[in-house]
């Protein structure tokens, strides 16, 4: 292909992660000359999905060049098979599409509305997220003596979605049901009752529950689970918790009875990045993979000259090409010290893990995803002390309906807001505990385990803009278990800056002419 050297662009977008891809989609009808590059040779950046082979290459690539990627400490384990012909084994490489960003999308999220209004929804398929489970140790009435050091085993308790779930729950006693219902009634329109929670805004959510609703500590776990907060309970503020619980409960029933969120098929958010980039390409955007910014010491971006009021930048790319562009969008290259790091893992197991996926409701779609939360303190490492300070572990379980693994297998995506060996150990422990707690025969075996650390990063912005300060200070949120609409707000903000006066409506497009060769599948 011809060289990029000497080419001129209106906009350069660096990286094909979700925010950048959504921006490209938003600009796909603008007529701007857009060059969209990614230093990786795959789409999706931190939101990519990999086949087995691609996972290995990714691991090797990062080991060779650990530089600016948000990922580190990657290890891939394939347990030895006793007899390769007997028993379950990994299928061929392309049978897998392991997501680096297995987020769920709440029904009321504006992302879904925008995917519809921009017409790209036809290329996407979504599956229902079913039950949420909380791992509970509890005092096991049937077994063990109180003085046992290690509990007999935890069990999974389903988080109620609303009144009818609370009604049918067999574990909660009446007082607990009443307290929970009182809270559920409050959360339905909590914004109209600031007197109840204003004073507790910045205080820990558990104390708010105890003080205002007399909800005992033993019942905090399911409500905290719904906040999807990565922090320990004591550091999850009421301000943070309430809108998230409301988001969960208000989404239930929006698409159909019994569920409130969906996951994209075929590999988490990566599908959305690909569909968005494809739309941008159809609109004239030029895509080059395996091409990043130059990392030479003299800096890759330099102001070249002004054309009237518009600055023009000269940008040097990885292989020495020099391009000019009016604007540049990308991730700032250096993570800040205060951005948290997470340990994450992807585990493929040889079972459909059916108990995690009870049917949602009559006529509701079959669930493809189940979320399991291990509250702070439920997992114990022999070496650890002060377990209450350990953050919760979240596991998003996808069955083969999600298209990420072959039939008969499931993928467990686990994460914890902790880095280093301890983080990895908790993840391992959580997966083990989860599999042990399920009554499945034959018992599931682990076929593949991928572990890595991921650093949260400041979000995408205009690079080399007029002001020296970054346009926004928030972090990227591919670490969240659920897609956060603030990502779309950031994209919209940048889109408005780039488009200026004639912006039009954000992500609202008409269908292109019928002779476009877009497949629906």
């Amino acid at each position, binding site marked *: 292909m011809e060289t990029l050297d000497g080419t001129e662009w209106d906009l350069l977008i660096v990286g094909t992660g979700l925010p950048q891809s959504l921006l490209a989609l938003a600009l796909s009808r603008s007529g701007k000359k857009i060059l969209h590059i990614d230093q990786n040779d795959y789409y999706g950046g931190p939101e990519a999905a990999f086949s087995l082979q691609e996972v290995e290459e990714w691991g090797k690539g990062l080991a060779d060049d650990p530089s600016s990627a948000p990922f580190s400490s990657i290890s891939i384990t394939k347990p030895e098979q006793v007899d390769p012909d007997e028993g379950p084994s990994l299928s061929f490489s392309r049978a897998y599409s392991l997501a680096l960003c297995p987020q769920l999308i709440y029904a009321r999220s504006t992302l879904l509305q925008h995917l519809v209004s921009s017409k790209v929804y036809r290329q996407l398929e979504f599956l229902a997220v079913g039950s949420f489970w909380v791992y509970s140790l509890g005092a096991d009435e049937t077994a063990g003596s109180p003085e046992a050091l290690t509990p007999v085993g935890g069990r999974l308790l389903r988080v109620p979605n609303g009144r*009818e779930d609370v009604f*049918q729950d067999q574990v909660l006693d009446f007082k607990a049901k*009443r307290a929970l*219902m009182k809270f559920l009634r409050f959360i339905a329109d909590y914004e109209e009752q600031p007197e109840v929670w204003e004073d507790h805004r910045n205080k820990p959510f558990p104390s708010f529950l105890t003080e205002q609703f007399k909800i005992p500590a033993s019942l905090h776990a399911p409500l905290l689970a719904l906040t999807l907060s990565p922090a320990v309970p004591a550091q999850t503020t009421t301000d943070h918790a309430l809108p998230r619980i409301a988001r969960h409960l208000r989404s239930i*029933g929006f698409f159909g009875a019994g569920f409130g969120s969906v996951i994209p098929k075929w590999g988490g958010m990566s599908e959305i990045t690909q569909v968005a980039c494809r739309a941008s390409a159809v609109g004239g955007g030029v895509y080059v993979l395996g091409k990043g910014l130059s990392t030479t010491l003299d800096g890759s971006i330099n102001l070249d000259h002004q054309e009237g009021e518009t600055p023009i930048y000269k940008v040097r790319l990885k292989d020495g090409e020099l391009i000019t562009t009016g604007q540049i969008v990308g991730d700032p290259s250096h993570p800040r010290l205060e951005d948290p790091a997470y340990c994450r893992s992807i585990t493929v197991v040889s079972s459909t893990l059916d108990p995690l996926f009870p049917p949602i409701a009559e006529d509701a779609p079959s669930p493809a995803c189940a979320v399991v939360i291990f509250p702070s303190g439920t997992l114990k490492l022999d070496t650890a002390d002060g377990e209450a300070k350990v953050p919760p572990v979240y596991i998003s379980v996808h069955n083969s309906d999600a298209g990420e693994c072959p039939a008969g297998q499931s993928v467990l995506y686990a994460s914890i807001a902790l880095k280093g060996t301890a983080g990895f150990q908790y993840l391992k422990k959580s997966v083990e505990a989860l599999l042990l707690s399920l009554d499945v025969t034959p018992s599931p075996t682990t076929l593949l385990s991928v572990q890595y650390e991921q650093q949260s990063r400041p979000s995408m912005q205009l690079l080399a803009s007029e002001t020296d300060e970054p346009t926004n200070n928030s972090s990227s949120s591919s670490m969240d278990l659920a897609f956060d609409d603030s990502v779309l707000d950031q994209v919209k903000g940048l889109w408005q800056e780039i488009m200026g006066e004639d912006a039009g409506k954000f992500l609202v497009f008409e269908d292109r002419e019928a002779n476009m060769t877009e497949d629906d599948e």
Partner: protein
Amino acid sequence: MASHGVARVSGPNASVRSEELRQKELKQIAAYKDLVDLVNTKETQYTVEVLGLTTKLLNENPEYYTIWNHRRRILLTLLPTGLVQDSPPPKPDPAALDIVNGDLQLTFALLRKFPKCYWIWNHRNWILEKGQSIFDSASALTLWLGELQLVGKMLHSDSRNFHAWSYRRFVVARLELIRTRTPTQQSLTESEFEYTTKMIKSNLSNFSAWHNRSQLIPRLLEERVADSAARRKVLNDELALICTAINTDPFDQSIWFYHQYLMSTLSPQCAPQKMIVRDLSNLDRQKYYAHEMEYIREILDDETECKWIYEALLCCASCYLEVDGGTEAFTTLDMREWLRELKRLDPLRKGRWEDLGRRLDI
């Protein structure tokens, strides 16, 4: 809250109307009026042509019940006469079949747009009853099973439509009637009971489901040939069910209605055919009332703003006093306090509560 915000499909919005729209509407009104006049002048003509006119009119306004009456008179003329009720005809008359099916289609189409219009349900009712005598028992069974499916679908889209529930009872009764002629068919009572359980589990606030349940229980017990122990079990199970429901959501009125029904079956004044347990002693009754009052009072620990609780306590108290005038489970002072709370929480019904106070003599 879902379901009952569903607005009726009516004419164009009365908000902002351009002159053009207004003229269009005036024309529509004029055309409608002409149609009405036409139908009414032909009131005594029972012909297929007038039938067609009523179809047109009813499609525009199914609420005009006089026209449904008129239509029925026409149909009576057009349908074959002299059919003996209980014996199936030698062969189904295709013309009659056409007419019946035609009206079934009409009402079906209209029900989808107006699921809560009394007259449409009524007419469907009527046409099926008339059609009964036209069909032989095999096709009648298929027809009624089809109706059961239809009403199931209507309840699926709006589980609280009492028209549909009432129609369901009618259909089930018809099916049971057919069953008595063909004893191999199973009774529907158990499955109908299960159906109410299912509906309640998916939405506790379903007045009609609870009501249907109360209607089914006496039949259920009869069909099971339930002895005293079995009857007590059913009563205890229902009381436990409603106890869980009350504890989950004391603010829901439909649950309290069912609770009142259960309480009424305990009372010595309950009609024998409505009793669940037939051999209750006064001691039994006291135990039941005491238990109910105890757990309901417990809810007051956490919830002081729910008027239903106070109302239920007063109701249980008065029942209790009937069987045990000297009970110490609660005092007159307690009752006065509950009445006070009731007046505080529901001041618009002050007169009613004062009346209650006088009746209870507190």
